[in-house]
């Protein structure tokens, strides 16, 4: 056990604690701050970010209002980089008490809060989305604060003045002693757990300051002192973009959901106020989210239909002398003003002060008052200077993007340049530096340099820590693209004791952390986004099975590869659709393209229309037939398929039948063979191929460019990445492969030609690999002195799946001849180059068979003819959205291949209903509460993604009674419900088999 002696110990690394530490250090006290997690991980990082003008309290609590406006002015001065001067409006919406307005203006004046009456015209000019029915508007000097950055800067300043800041040091208990001769106890320090080194640390101090916020009661309690805190949960919801640029408050007595704060790239509406028994354990209730949406609607018409990114809650540290159980359920009346408890006078225990309550805006004042008390207690009067001296804002970037400062150990956030921050700042910096090729988090524009700085600070232990530093993963895709990149970068910068096992877990933990905040608002486009994230992390990267020791069958026989060329039988035309029949396929994913291709081959006159492209562009570019059955790895798909067909007679595979599945695979293999892009594999076996996360993915058909990576075979791998390409981190991949018992090593090639480019992504690399010259350069770089040894030790060489778009096979063979070892591609984040190759081959095939393909056409409506005699109802035409007026498409046969939620085939609404997008067919929806699992990667999958159309044996959509909706309508691929292609790893297989079956009907 270590012992750290100090004068003052501060417990809590939120706004208050870091502020107190700074004040203490500035007044020359020897100070240690301990925080149980990361700085501002508690309530400070979980609030809406409002810098109060005081307007909110002007009527009800003038004292608090005055404090706010005074501190507001000070904070703007001392931490301009943390404050955005958004200004604030107080607006009176219909139904608000009109008398409040006058009281408000007068109260503001009394408290010294500048308050300007704004004409409604002016208000709408500045904030055009506000409700035009608003009847009154005042302007006050509210602002938006970056509370993460502020806590960091306070901690950095404290350090600069000699304080020690220890993160991940939870307090186990306060240490007390009883002075000899007296029976008075006093607190003399705290026992902490150093979570990073997993050891106990005793910190001895003359005085302990309990600034643990909502957890202050627990801390004091550990010394037997009762401090009654009422954890007040406040729920907030973030809108995907800045729907307003001014803080919007309601002109009424403070209540729920009456603040809308523009914070960085989002707007946050808050909050509720619910007492909870435990500050660490609370759920966000659906009614809370609903309430935020309803209240938002009053401010901004259409608010409820916006895209929401997250819902989260913070617990307010509300202090009440009486027992909280006696209090009314509503918390808002409890005082917001802060309290400083001197436990010597209050409880007869010396050595401990508790500072609690209050709000972010007044944190500095709270610190000042606390440290004044410290001076008094220690009999050492020293004046406060925190209001006079600016925080050590990071110096402006020196030739580096958003690259701030500084002492690598300061742990300071890297995103301030000392100027008042503004919305466009990051984008402007990226543009100035042409740094658009260096984005780890594209949504929030966090660059590689920023993330690397955070990692190098040594103060980062989880991906979530990086998030708090640089806003990683806080935008629309909620870590979909950046999580893998950050995990890989972390491995590339790893210290010697880096454990790859940790990193796989780290990635999953981060994904899970993001998921947690998403589930309360997951519907509409954000749900679609999460389905894409599932596709990336399950289907392509196999992260859910990362680290599992895969059962590898050594030396799987190549003989099992039933080579294409043994001609598939021509499929029997089961329904006998006459040649020349016009067929309209709706949807341009794999199912739609294969349906169109088959129909055209059978002599039908085919048109395919699609809103845009789909899963081909996102997937691995293989044909996954069945990778997992009941969570178990499938090694022999034929047997597993037979079992599945038996067990689930409504599964699309059961409807298609084994023979059709096999024919569909064969026909695609033949096509690809003819296109000089062979796909290998058969129903006899699944390949086990490495992914860009270093996991092993089972797949049935893989392009020739990938199969040398088969992990059922032995053979030492050299994984090669390219320095500026952020989607592929060879050290991380190799580390994870090693951990699964494979021999692998990673090398990151730094080629001057690539480094000189501003933008290197998969598409650009693919374009380069199409050129023989570039391939020679790559080989030369690998044969250089630096890498020669590694190359010599490799029995096969893995590259990111970017080995050419048009000439992939040639590129692979060329590289093999240059390098003298088998070469394989490893799939990763979208866009999928191997998927694009398949897409081009299929489009070409449709066209060559006489079919037409049109993109940009979204089906919005239909015309059907009613049932007549023995004929059921049938579709006559569908309408697609077009410039100025819809376009009609007539056909004899219609094939719906619009996909599931991800493809846009159906959407899920906030009210729990599901909608089929193109034709408005009724869909059965699972219960809203049962939509999602608590765990993102849960093996069972999320029920909402299993929804979809029910079809009969001919793939015709049917209603609940089994009756077809339209005689001439068929469905294929993800539009069909009842299965989860991503969990099964059957995405391409199911699309291909059903598309084939329907097209050939």
């Amino acid at each position, binding site marked *: 056990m270590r012992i750290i002696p100090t004068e003052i110990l501060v417990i809590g690394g939120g706004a208050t604690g870091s502020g107190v530490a700074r004040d203490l250090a500035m007044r020359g006290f020897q100070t240690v701050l301990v925080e149980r997690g990361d700085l501002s991980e508690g309530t400070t990082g979980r609030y809406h970010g409002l810098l109060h003008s005081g307007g909110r309290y002007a009527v009800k609590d003038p004292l608090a209002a005055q404090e706010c406006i005074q501190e507001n002015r000070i904070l703007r001065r001392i931490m301009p980089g943390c404050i955005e001067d958004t200004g604030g409006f107080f607006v009176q919406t219909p139904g608000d008490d009109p008398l409040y307005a006058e009281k408000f203006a007068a109260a503001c004046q009394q408290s010294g809060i500048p308050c300007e009456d704004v004409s409604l015209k002016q208000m709408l000019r500045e904030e055009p989305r506000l409700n035009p029915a608003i009847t009154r508007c005042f302007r006050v000097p509210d602002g938006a604060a970056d509370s993460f950055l502020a806590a960091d800067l306070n901690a950095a300043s404290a350090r600069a003045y000699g304080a020690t800041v220890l993160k991940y040091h939870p307090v186990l208990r306060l240490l007390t002693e009883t002075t000899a001769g007296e029976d008075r106890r006093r607190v003399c320090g705290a026992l902490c757990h150093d979570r990073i080194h997993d050891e106990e640390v005793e910190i001895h101090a003359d005085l302990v300051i309990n600034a643990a916020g909502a957890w202050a009661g627990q801390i004091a309690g550990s010394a037997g002192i009762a401090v009654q805190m009422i954890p007040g949960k406040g729920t907030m919801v973030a809108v995907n*973009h800045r729907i307003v640029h001014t803080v919007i408050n309601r002109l009424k007595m403070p209540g729920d959901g009456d603040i809308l704060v523009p914070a960085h790239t989002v707007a946050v509406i808050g909050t509720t106020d619910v007492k909870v028994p435990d500050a660490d354990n609370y759920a966000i209730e659906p009614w809370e989210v609903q309430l935020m949406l309803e209240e938002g609607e009053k401010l901004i018409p259409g608010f409820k239909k916006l895209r929401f990114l997250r819902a989260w809650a913070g617990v307010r540290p509300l202090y009440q002398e009486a027992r909280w159980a006696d209090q009314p359920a509503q918390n808002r009346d409890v005082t917001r003003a802060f309290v400083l408890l001197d436990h010597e006078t209050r409880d007869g225990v010396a050595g401990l002060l508790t500072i609690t309550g209050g709000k972010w805006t007044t944190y500095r004042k709270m610190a000042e008052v606390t440290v004044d008390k410290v001076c008094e207690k220690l009999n050492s009067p020293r004046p406060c200077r925190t209001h006079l001296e600016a925080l050590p804002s990071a110096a402006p970037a020196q030739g580096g993007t958003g690259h701030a400062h500084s002492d690598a150990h300061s742990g300071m956030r890297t995103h301030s340049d000392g100027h008042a921050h503004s919305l466009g700042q990051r984008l402007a910096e990226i543009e100035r530096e*042409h740094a658009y090729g260096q984005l780890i988090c594209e949504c929030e524009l966090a660059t590689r340099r920023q993330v690397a700085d955070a990692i190098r600070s040594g103060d980062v232990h989880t991906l979530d820590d990086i998030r708090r530093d640089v806003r990683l993963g806080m935008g629309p895709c909620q870590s979909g693209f950046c999580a893998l990149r950050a995990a890989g970068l972390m491995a590339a910068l790893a210290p010697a004791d880096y454990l790859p096992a940790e990193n796989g877990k780290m990635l999953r933990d981060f994904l899970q952390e993001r998921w947690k905040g998403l589930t309360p608002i997951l519907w509409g486009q954000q749900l679609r986004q999460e389905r894409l994230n599932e596709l990336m992390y399950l289907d392509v990267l196999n992260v859910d099975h990362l680290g599992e020791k895969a059962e590898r069958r050594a030396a799987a026989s190549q003989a099992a590869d039933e080579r294409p060329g043994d001609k598939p039988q021509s499929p029997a035309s089961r329904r006998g659709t006459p040649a020349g029949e016009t067929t309209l396929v709706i949807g341009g994913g794999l199912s739609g393209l294969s349906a169109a291709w088959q129909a055209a081959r059978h002599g039908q006159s085919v048109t395919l229309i699609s809103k845009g492209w789909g899963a081909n562009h996102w997937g691995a570019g293989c044909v996954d037939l069945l990778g997992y059955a009941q969570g178990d790895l499938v090694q022999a798909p034929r047997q597993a398929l037979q079992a599945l067909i038996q067990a689930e007679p409504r599964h699309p595979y059961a409807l298609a039948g084994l023979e059709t599945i096999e024919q569909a695979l064969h026909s695609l293999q033949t096509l690809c063979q003819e296109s000089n892009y062979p796909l290998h594999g058969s129903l006899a076996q699944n390949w086990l191929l490495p992914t860009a996360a270093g996991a092993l993915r089972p797949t049935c058909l893989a392009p020739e460019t990938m199969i040398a990576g088969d992990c059922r075979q032995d053979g030492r791998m050299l994984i090669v990445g390219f320095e500026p390409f952020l989607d592929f981190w060879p050290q991380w991949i190799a580390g994870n492969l090693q951990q699964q018992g494979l021999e692998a090593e990673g090398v990151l090639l730094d080629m001057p030609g690539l480094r000189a480019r501003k933008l290197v992504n998969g598409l650009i690399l693919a374009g380069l690999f199409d050129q023989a010259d570039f391939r020679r350069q790559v080989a030369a770089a690998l044969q250089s002195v630096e890498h020669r040894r590694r190359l010599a030790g490799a029995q096969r060489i893995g590259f990111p799946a970017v080995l050419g778009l048009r000439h992939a096979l040639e590129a692979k063979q060329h590289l093999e001849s240059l390098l003298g070892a088998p070469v394989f591609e490893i799939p990763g984040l979208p866009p999928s180059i191997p998927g694009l190759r398949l897409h081009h081959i299929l489009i070409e095939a449709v066209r060559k068979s006489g079919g037409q393909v049109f993109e940009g056409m979204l089906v919005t409506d239909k015309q059907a003819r009613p049932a007549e005699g023995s004929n059921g109802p049938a579709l006559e035409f569908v309408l697609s959205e077009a410039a100025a007026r819809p376009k009609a498409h007539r056909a004899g046969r219609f094939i719906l291949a619009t996909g599931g939620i991800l493809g846009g085939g159906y959407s899920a609404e906030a009210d729990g209903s599901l909608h089929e997008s193109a034709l408005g067919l009724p869909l059965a929806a699972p219960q809203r509460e049962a939509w999602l699992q608590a765990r993102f990667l849960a093996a069972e999958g999320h029920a909402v993604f299993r929804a979809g159309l029910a079809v009969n044996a001919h793939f015709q959509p049917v209603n609940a009674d089994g009756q077809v909706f339209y005689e001439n309508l068929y469905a294929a691929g993800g539009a069909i419900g009842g299965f989860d292609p991503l969990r099964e790893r059957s995405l391409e297989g199911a699309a291909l088999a059903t598309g084939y079956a329907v097209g050939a009907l």
Partner: protein
Amino acid sequence: MEFLDQPVELSLDLCLKCNICTTVCPVMAVTEAFPGPKYAGPQAGRFRGGEQLTPDASVDYCSGCRACNMACPAGVKIAEMNARARGALVEQGKVAPLKRLRNNLVARAATLGQVAQPVAPLANLAMGLKPARWAADVFLGIHHEAPFPPFSRESFTGWLRQHQAERRKAAPGAPGVGSVVYFHGCSTEYYEPRVGKAAVRVLERLGYEVIVPRQNCCGLPLLSNGEFPAARQYHENNVRSLLPYARQGIPIVGTSTSCTLTLKEEAPELLDMHDEATRLVAESTYDFNEFILASGRLTEEVLSQEIALRLPYHIPCQYRAHRIGKPGLEALSLVKGLSVVDGGHTCCGIAGTYGYKTEKYAIAQAVGAALFDWVTGFGAPLAVCDSETCRWQITHATGIPAIHPVELLSAAMGYAPEGALRDVLQLK
């Protein structure tokens, strides 16, 4: 679907970050100056707005081809977002004055035409002078090889007056099947009257009375240079002059696919003109081939002449963006003996005035390279394309004359062809 009614900027909420748009953007594929549709559109969109100066400039490299919109599965209006961002750059004075002057020069074909056409030989001579072109390149940023077509000596409307007078004389008050308004656009008026003549002849043969009301430039070149207030002026004028016909249910038909797209959608959307009049004009506007196909009057009987040619065809981006398929190709498929092949290329690169500019000329040439190779390799004496600037670009890059489909239709109806088509058919 809800997003159809969403204003341009709000559509950023639909983005899944999925990168599909980046796989089709022809500009990103050839230059590092442009970070691509996802970045420039929905991604940067979250950092724009409010009181601040617009933070980004690379968006100016978007050519506006809309290939991204067509491929996006989520319905993000990327190209429009980019156009509006450029509008903000211009509005805030972030485009250098000389560049802006240049942009206004190339974007005002009508003004240029009015000045130059009366002195066409002189103007063409000047345009052909190397030193003059170099001067324009160095001082104005108009690339010295930019594919400007020669001014036509005769204006389309000049011909039309004469033609209509003759027609009235020949068959006064002949009953037709109805009237159409013809929107000829600047190129037909000043550079290629032959396209307008062919269009009038075809429409008349199909039984329509052709009305050509006062019209000015559709404003697209201004829109794509971010000059929104000026574009608004143009569009308001056009709406005013076309509205009476729209009100009577008379269709407005144009041979320039970008003019018709502007009337249908671009101008109302980018300029936020959602009034009744603008909407009515938009809904009455048709692409020429879209219209004649829908009329049901384009029969094999009217297309009596055989044209034994096999020609390469390129569908302009702005035509694809109508989202009505390929009516040009469809109409031509009815012509006996004629085989027109679509190469399936995304973009020729010119994108209106984009490829004229010094800093973008090379990008535009690189974008179109695959198309040019294909056209050259096709070995035909002509190429076919519906949009004027694309035709000029193709011809500039390949040396092969390019014609509008209506010229072939008119020839197939037995009217005397003009220009390159005449030369080719005469040779045969």
